[in-house]
């Protein structure tokens, strides 16, 4: 546990010593803010239920933000050679993977907590359905963690950060778009695609529904990705 926290702490600190965390946070919050203004100030017929769409668009942005946060986690250590020292410490491979994963998840969590200020602002002038908002945010956090896990895996397979980011974005886009395929294939195959879709599994959360099936989907995505990352790290024969 101590090792995990040490590694997570180090990664979090380096997010903040590089401009990375600030640039991404400003970018993320800025776009969400813009959408917020566009919905509630410029649309006269706007309802507070439109917050659901806001959280929906946050997830889509997350799909691009998270890979930028995770791309360096292993790729950079490989490229700069620090990987060698890290892996010769008395630290288990999975502790390193989990530590780095947690760093990204906590950074993402703090950014979306800041974004909660938008519905708080709305509360001043209208009645906000907080149960729905918080469920949506829970889904967002869970999905963000799953994206981060996939990003960690993508970063573990290469020593090129850009390649790691691209791999992660493509895997996420695939999981995002696979739901759309479900309408053009047979019923049974379509169901399988729907179950694999990030969007399908996220939609219930944004409607204010917590379903274990969706939670299990995201947790399995996290588990499988981190497992693959550990196995990739373990296999350094060719590095």
């Amino acid at each position, binding site marked *: 546990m*101590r090792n995990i926290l*040490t590694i997570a702490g*180090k990664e979090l600190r380096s997010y903040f010593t590089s401009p990375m965390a600030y640039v991404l946070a400003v970018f993320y919050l800025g776009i969400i803010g813009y959408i917020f203004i566009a919905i509630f100030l410029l649309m006269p017929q706007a309802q507070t239920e439109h917050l659901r769409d806001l959280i929906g668009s946050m997830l889509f942005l997350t799909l691009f933000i998270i890979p930028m946060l995770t791309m360096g986690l292993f790729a950079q250590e490989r490229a*700069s050679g620090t990987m*060698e*020292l890290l892996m*010769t*410490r*008395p630290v288990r491979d999975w502790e390193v993977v989990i530590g780095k994963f947690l760093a990204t998840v906590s950074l993402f969590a703090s950014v979306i907590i800041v974004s909660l200020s938008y519905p708080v602002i709305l509360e001043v002038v209208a009645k906000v359905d907080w149960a729905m908002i918080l469920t949506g945010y829970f889904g967002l956090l869970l999905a963000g963690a799953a994206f981060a896990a996939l990003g960690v895996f993508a970063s573990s397979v290469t020593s090129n950060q850009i390649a790691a980011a691209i791999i992660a974005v493509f895997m996420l886009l695939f999981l995002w778009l696979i739901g759309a395929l479900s309408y053009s294939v047979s019923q049974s195959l379509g169901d399988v695609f729907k179950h694999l879709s990030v969007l399908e599994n996220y939609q219930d959360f944004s409607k204010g529904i917590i379903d274990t099936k969706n939670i299990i989907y995201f947790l399995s995505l996290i588990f499988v990705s981190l497992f693959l990352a550990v196995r990739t790290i373990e296999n350094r024969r060719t*590095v």
Partner: protein
Amino acid sequence: MIQADGLTKYYAQHPAIVDVSFQVEEGEIVAFLGPNAAGKTTTMRILTGYMPATFGAAQVTGFDLAEQSLQARRNIGYMPEAVALYPDMRVHQYLGYCGRLQGMGKAELTERMDYVIDRCGLSERASSIIGTLSLGFRQRVSLAQAMLHDPPVLILDEPTVGLDPNQIVEVRNLIKSLAGDHTVLLSTHILPEAQMTCERVIIINEGEIVAEGSPQALTAQLRQAETLLVTIRDDDGTVARQIKNIPEVVDMRRAEQAGSYYVETEVGSDLRADISKFIVEKGWGLLELRPVEMSLEDVFRELTTEEKGVA
């Protein structure tokens, strides 16, 4: 303390090291000497638990690197060949991070950190950002992290590369002062370094150990003849032939300088008196006559260029 048994490592089809076996006893300083790409780094990466050997086994402080890797790694301080540090961290932050990963307690860490910062000459740079340091200082930070947790075994891959001559002397003295309390295996391709800092040298070439022993023993082992350097003022061209006629003289060849010759005589013989008398009697004008010692450098060159083993 360090034991390697038949280590063999293949990268794809290409063997990096083949059947490397050696031992380093407690408190010894041993140099791992070899030209570039001889397999030094590969061997060290196996010994530090970074990657497994294809065949063979290795133990450090009695822990097998494959079976009890974590325990072994706890007892090793490793300075990798490429000075790889996190450029955005400060020196003390970095050392703190390393110490925590080594499982050090807070009080112990503070104390050891002060000690290694002092020993490695980093006192004035302790709060500098690593990325702004010169290579020499980064090298010291790398050495400091290897010593930080006071490991019984230190594995240093080319510890003096990139340092200026003064720093090299400092680092060598530092390594020497670790002897006794620590077991040190260091790799180098610089011969005087091995000769100066180490009690024992293991020479590796093309993935195989070709010689092992103290620098003195190695030079003695390889010496096939005693060599004298003779310089003559009035060389009429017949000198070589005439000296060669002395019994016990095995060979005679020109040295770089005009009038100078290397005279090789039988092992164990000392013909200095006979040869000087001979030359003086001929009236050639003897300017110089001295024995030529075979240096570790010659041994090294002999072993790594020709395929000749003594081990």
